[in-house]
């Protein structure tokens, strides 16, 4: 099972900044292992972020997003204690959802 994300969300002057670290190999499908076999592509394809129930960002990743992806973005509003939820799905159908409270 995929490891948890680290989500940090902080509200300041009416804007919430969200920073997310995801634990994922982001394998490109272009590398070979020591025996010369191609390592199959394995990467996050889609991501959504919500503030309470409102969608605040959706993203699509390709395999050239770095291993253990980082994402930062800002949305208007958000109060301390509100919930920020981030979900991702990868090309093998694995998924992960984590949430954090706005600090």
């Amino acid at each position, binding site marked *: 099972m995929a490891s948890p994300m680290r989500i940090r969300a902080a509200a300041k002057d009416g804007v919430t900044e969200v920073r997310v670290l995801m634990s994922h190999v982001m394998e490109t499908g272009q590398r070979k292992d020591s025996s010369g076999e191609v390592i199959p592509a394995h990467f996050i394809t889609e991501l*959504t972020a919500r503030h309470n129930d409102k969608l605040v*960002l959706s993203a699509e990743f390709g395999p050239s997003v770095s291993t253990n992806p*980082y994402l930062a*973005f*800002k949305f208007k509003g958000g109060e301390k204690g509100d919930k920020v939820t981030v979900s991702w*799905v990868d090309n093998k*159908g694995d*998924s992960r959802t984590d949430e954090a409270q706005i600090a």
Partner: protein
Amino acid sequence: MNHQRRDALKAGGGLGVLGLLATVGLIRPETAHAAWNEQAFGAKSLDAAFEVLGAGKPAVSDDVVLNTPDIAENGAVVPVGVVSKLPGTEYVAIMIEKNPYMLAASFTIPEGTQAEVQTRVKMGQTSDVYALVKADGKFYMAKKEVKVTLGGCGG
């Protein structure tokens, strides 16, 4: 959960993975709906990627700002930030010209979210990095060269 998922994948055969997962209720339908843009991520040239995204020949705009270091110590992780000052920015994409596939990531910006995203990408070599932005239905872009030093012997 994981077992179910694997079985579902096996049974799925030709069906789209995400669609299938949605039908068996394993992921939220709206996530699956977004449908990863395979064509855009498969584009092997900048022009092809622009075309798939319907961007044509985007105009260079000073209101699109690329935040990257001038030189990256390792191409495996290159920080890239995009800020669009264009009103009505609804979409941002990051492209690396000399990567085998141009498009690295794209972001759909709903109303209320600032057109300011940051992520990290892999770069095979020194290359121009492009930010493509869609604002009020029109496409704009900015580019910046990032030098990549590949070096060292594991030290």
